[in-house]
């Protein structure tokens, strides 16, 4: 406002007003400053986590610019020359584009469509069981695989599926059949991945449904009992509706992450013979980037997945807010 000072007429006309806004502004700055000073120790605490976020979460986003560059290790991220959308075009036109997208979505959707009903039935069964000890035993045992590393799952799968000594192949041999190399057979690989994921995660995913079932008012069941509703009708009309909101939220969240497919699990289980049915976006990014040194192309594919993924999860969140009046994050 200092440029008004030279003109007396303007000054007299504008002084009360500008002085007022100036005063209000100063007041606000002062109040903000006081609030910040009051919380100075909190800002002090925030320094290490903020440095962590800057380095390990935001520098990678900055590094992602190599998706639009031809990355040379010697020239570094900044020094490498720009090439525009060349790597994206390479990816879209490549023969593996369809394969990667289809594989990724097949795994995500199959795990969801098969896993969800099993989890719901399991939760309802656990909830209805009246043998308390057995109930908690089932919960403990079915939750456990969630906490095991994917490598342990590989060990367990080999014990079942190995062509030389796996249990299932022993049974096949005993019945007079030829042993099947499940993990390296394109006809079987997807089924193995999907079923083993269900084995690992279904129990744990019942937790949210069980919590929803426990929050149902017991009076409802009693009233239905008095009205002569059978057990099945009570499950259908009281239990099931009570978990629908959770089912909707879980489904939306999973659909928002549809491009994930389950990197760790597939990375541990897959091998060259099953790339055509098992390779997902993330595993391809790893191979082409880390193993084949195509850093720019791999980053472009990763960035493509990231942008679509961001849009999907925000969209899923909008629907969740509208349908279930709840945010996903």
């Amino acid at each position, binding site marked *: 406002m200092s440029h008004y000072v030279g003109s007396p007429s303007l000054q007299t006309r504008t002084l009360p007003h500008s002085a007022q806004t100036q005063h209000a502004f100063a007041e606000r700055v002062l109040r903000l400053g006081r609030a910040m000073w009051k919380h100075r120790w909190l800002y002090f605490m925030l320094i290490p986590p903020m440095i962590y976020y800057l380095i390990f979460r935001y520098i*990678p986003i900055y590094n992602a610019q190599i998706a639009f560059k031809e990355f040379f290790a010697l020239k570094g991220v900044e020094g490498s020359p720009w090439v525009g959308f060349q790597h994206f075009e390479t990816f879209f036109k490549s023969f593996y584009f369809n394969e990667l997208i289809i594989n990724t979505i097949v795994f995500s959707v199959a795990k969801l469509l098969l896993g969800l009903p099993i989890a719901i039935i399991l939760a309802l069964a656990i909830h209805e069981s009246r043998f308390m000890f057995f109930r908690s035993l089932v919960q403990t045992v079915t939750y456990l695989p969630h906490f095991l590393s994917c490598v342990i799952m590989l060990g367990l799968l080999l014990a079942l599926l190995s062509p030389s000594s796996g249990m299932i192949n022993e049974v096949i041999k005993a019945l007079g059949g030829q042993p099947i190399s499940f993990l390296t057979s394109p006809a079987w690989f997807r089924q193995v991945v999907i079923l083993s994921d269900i084995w690992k995660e279904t129990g744990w995913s019942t937790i949210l449904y069980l919590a929803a079932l426990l929050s149902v008012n017991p009076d409802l069941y009693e009233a239905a009992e008095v009205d002569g509703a059978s057990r099945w009708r009570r499950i259908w009309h009281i239990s099931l509706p009570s978990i629908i909101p959770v089912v909707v939220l879980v489904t939306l969240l999973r659909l928002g992450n549809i491009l994930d497919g389950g990197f760790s699990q597939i990375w541990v289980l897959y091998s060259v013979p099953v790339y055509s049915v098992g390779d997902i976006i993330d595993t391809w990014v790893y191979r082409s980037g880390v193993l084949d040194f195509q850093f720019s192309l791999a980053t472009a594919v990763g960035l493509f997945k990231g942008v679509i993924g961001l849009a999907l999860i925000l969209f899923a969140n909008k629907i969740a807010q509208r349908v279930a009046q709840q945010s996903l994050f």
Partner: protein
Amino acid sequence: MFRSSREDWGFQLLINGFLLIVLILILIPLWRVIMTSLTPLDVYMRGGTPAFQFPWDWSFAAYAQMLTHPTFPRATLNSIIITICGTTLSLALTVPLAYALSSRTLPGRKIIIALILFTFLFHVGLIPTYLLVAKTLGWTNNILAIIVPPAVGVTNVLVMMRFFEGIPEEIKESARIDGANDLQVLWQIVLPLSKPILLTIGLFYAVNYWNEFFTPILYLNDQNLQPLPVLLRNILIGQNFSEYVDYDVSRAASIESLKSSAVLLTMLPMVLVYPWIQRYFTKGTLLGGVKE
């Protein structure tokens, strides 16, 4: 309350029968691995792993062979170091972050939460982080590469933040009136009240570090630094089996027994600890809602 009719019994039989089948399906692979690991070499040579065994057929040779070779104990030690250092660092970053953000009057709180959430929702993939850790920081063959990059989990921050928000303001305010600053309030007042959430979040971090196998393979070439899951993977699919175990037929264990014993030994710490800490996991997950 319940009609103790035949319908009830039939119903209970049905659902508990279903639960029993689920239980068996979960346990079959474990049973098979246990059996394989305990099968003596001569029994295995005669007809593979039997479905059931009597006590006099057990052999712990595979376990003995696994544990006496230096590789397995060393990998266990590496895993313990990674888990302890990683969990400590994770909590040291998560607690102050969550506590600062739990103060609703903190100027800039919303911006910081938005910046954190953004990194949670938007991923640029593996390569930019790989370039940072392996090339810029040069952490190849350095366990910092395993410990530091995944140190803060957004979900864990938000769960802990919500817990801190639930601590009554009056308790903190009275400490402030006595002249304590926020750092002292956190350390002396809030943290002693937060043991359950610290344990829960700490366990989540610890399990992730304990199970991590991809980043060690990505960043650690030195076999001496590899943690347990990586060693197990090498044992299961590796070509040079003899590098990890003294494979010696005279010591009476088949390769299959050795592999199975490695699976079980890797699982064992988790299986032993898990039943005692299960309730903390359940509580933590419910606090986090649908977010995993």
